[in-house]
């Protein structure tokens, strides 16, 4: 087999009936693909376009648009997303928008169409410009200039690294967009160059992605999908993929294990960036294996321990300096110690939250971990840990406080005292949601009451707050009472009832936290139980602060029925 190339894809040719893509239930042959490129290239050329913005939802039409622009001698620009605001923000950077879905309001839009008249596409200039963007999770998306040659080298390198795993003619499915470098390389360039088949649509839902799989296919996905597979039955052997790829963020160990069990193949993680393309990979057949650089790529640590990559895929001088802290390992492998930019000051010392997390995850007692700095009079380091099987056993044996101290001692081997979490929470799973401010807030909220450790870890001690509504003299809260609430343990065995003491305790705590009324402890109270309160149900709690009488009244209601009512004498502030 000859080396895969993209610039000579049409010049060298391929069997006319080779399947290039499947989309909309249609099988696209090489002859059809060539005709689609030729016809659309002629339309682009007639429009006299120098810079084309490619906004396609379907990876096949993305490929047609990309090669039509190359054939017409125009720059291909792949915007970070198709949102009108993003497109508007790029105004002035492009002359014509190429799309595969009707768009309203965009002038200069050209809808890609099947076939048409046009010259046969010839060899393309390897230096032809292709512009991509960073996803821009923080601040503005950054524009990165690539060339066709860079995409071609990357596709060839990926084929050397992974090609043997995936049968020729297998279909490459995806849940990620093809306009970012990860999707562009794996869903579009690699299949085209290497004789695999592009699956056109990106599947947002597992249901769609899994129903499209056939045995030996590849799946290009991400932690967003792989960490949300609960309830999916193992994939039948007749539909098992040969390769499951994940990139974009670290894949947590429980998700890696679950995915391997469901797909029957370990997840292959890709590490890279928009600037560099893919840098390294690792197969998640064991917990936290070292990363192995792709063939031809050298990974080094600079003086400050930051990632430095020498790669033929990097435009310009081939050198990229990243913000990830790394530790080099034997035989060219390396470990990621986290981004250098998640640095907080704890007791005057700079602490990398990501490094604390990486060190925690490396402990046998820990499956996953998130570190946060809690604000307050002095910032304090805190960690939320999902124990491994071994860790959970230890936790059950010694309790949360001692388990946290044991983890601190284990971390002390690599961390300065400031880098040792003071506060710990142990959960079955980390709060879900994309990384970002909201998730940080969710994590930090776990430490709202840092004075006491959870007496029974793994169980919530308070109801979930679903909504809050201010009242002139208080607050109304919609609460959900999970069946696994810790305070239910030991009360009324065999009968699921929310004990009255817990209801009084919650009223006092929530009033202290949300109304600043009292010190969160009910020492002197009156209460009337009108109806039994059962868990796994929603209730509404009304709190009123009668400041003049230094009392708090509370009332739990279900629909319009009062379950419990009472009052608490306020002490403290």
């Amino acid at each position, binding site marked *: 087999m000859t080396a895969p190339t993209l610039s000579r894809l049409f010049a060298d040719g391929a069997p006319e009936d080779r399947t290039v893509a499947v989309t909309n239930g249609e099988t696209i042959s090489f002859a059809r693909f060539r005709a689609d490129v030729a016809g659309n290239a002629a339309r682009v050329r007639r429009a006299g376009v120098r810079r084309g913005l490619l906004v396609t939802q379907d990876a096949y039409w993305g490929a047609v648009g990309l090669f039509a622009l190359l054939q017409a001698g125009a720059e291909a620009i792949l915007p970070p997303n198709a949102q009108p605001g993003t497109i508007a923000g790029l105004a002035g950077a492009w002359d014509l928008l190429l799309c595969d879905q009707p768009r309203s309001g965009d002038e200069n839009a050209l809808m890609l169409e099947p076939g048409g008249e046009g010259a046969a596409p010839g060899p393309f200039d390897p230096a032809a410009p292709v512009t991509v963007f960073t996803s821009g999770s923080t601040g503005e998306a950054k524009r990165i200039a690539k060339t066709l040659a860079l995409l071609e080298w990357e596709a060839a390198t990926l084929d050397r690294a992974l090609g043997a795993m995936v049968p020729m003619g297998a279909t490459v499915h995806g849940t990620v967009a093809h306009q970012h470098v990860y999707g562009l390389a794996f869903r579009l360039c690699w299949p085209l160059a290497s004789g695999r088949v592009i699956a056109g649509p990106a599947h*947002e*839902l597992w249901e769609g992605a899994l129903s499209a799989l056939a045995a030996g296919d590849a799946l290009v996905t991400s932690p*967003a*999908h792989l960490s949300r597979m*609960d*309830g999916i*039955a193992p994939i039948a052997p007749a539909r098992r993929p040969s390769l499951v790829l994940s990139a974009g963020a670290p894949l947590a160990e429980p998700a890696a294990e679950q995915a391997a069990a469901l797909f029957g193949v370990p997840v292959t993680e890709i590490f890279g960036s928009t600037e560099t393309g893919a840098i390294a990979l690792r197969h998640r057949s064991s917990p936290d294996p070292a990363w192995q650089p792709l063939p031809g790529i050298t990974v080094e640590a600079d003086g400050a321990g930051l990632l430095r990559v020498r790669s033929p895929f990097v435009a310009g001088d081939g050198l990229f300096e990243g913000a990830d802290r790394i530790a080099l390992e034997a035989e060219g492998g390396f470990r990621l110690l986290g981004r250098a930019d998640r640095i907080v000051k704890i007791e005057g010392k700079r602490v990398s939250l990501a490094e604390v997390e990486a060190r925690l995850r490396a402990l046998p007692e820990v499956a996953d971990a998130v570190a946060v700095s809690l604000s307050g009079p002095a910032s304090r380091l805190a960690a939320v840990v999902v124990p491994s099987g071994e860790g959970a056993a230890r936790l059950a044996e010694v309790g949360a406080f001692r388990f946290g101290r044991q983890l601190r001692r284990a971390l002390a081997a690599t961390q300065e005292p400031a880098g040792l979490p003071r506060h710990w929470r142990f959960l079955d799973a980390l709060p879900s949601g994309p990384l970002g401010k909201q998730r940080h807030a969710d994590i930090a909220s776990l430490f709202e009451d840092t004075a006491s450790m959870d007496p029974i870890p793994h169980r919530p001690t308070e109801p979930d707050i*679903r909504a809050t509504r201010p009242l002139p003299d208080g607050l109304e809260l919609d609460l959900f009472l999970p069946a696994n609430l810790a305070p239910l343990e030991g009360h009324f065995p065999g009968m699921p009832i929310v004990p009255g003491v817990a209801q009084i305790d919650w009223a006092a705590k929530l009033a202290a936290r949300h109304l600043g009324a009292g010190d969160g402890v009910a020492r002197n109270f009156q209460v009337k139980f009108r109806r039994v309160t059962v868990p796994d149900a929603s209730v509404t709690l009304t709190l009123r602060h009668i400041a003049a009488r230094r009392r708090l009244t509370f009332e739990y209601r279900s629909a319009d029925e009062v379950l419990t009512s009472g009052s608490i004498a306020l002490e403290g502030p």
Partner: protein
Amino acid sequence: MDDLETEVKALIVDSLKLEDLRPEDIDSEEPLFVDGLGLDSIDALELGVALRKKFGLRIESVSEDIKAHFATVRSLARFIRSQQAAAAAQQA
């Protein structure tokens, strides 16, 4: 009001932890994504998990465009019913 639709609404509010929204605030015909309720692709994945857990949806049997089923509460309820009917027929 359809009981299953009410259940689906409660599931959406509970599983996605939508604050300041009650199940009855969701219209059965309202698009769940983008223009309507404004759910995003991560919400769709979370909702998928919740639906599988609560209703035991079997996904191997889904061949047509799954996104159409997720369009509204009404289409989701219809989808759940058809899946349940298919499962019952298989058992019979």
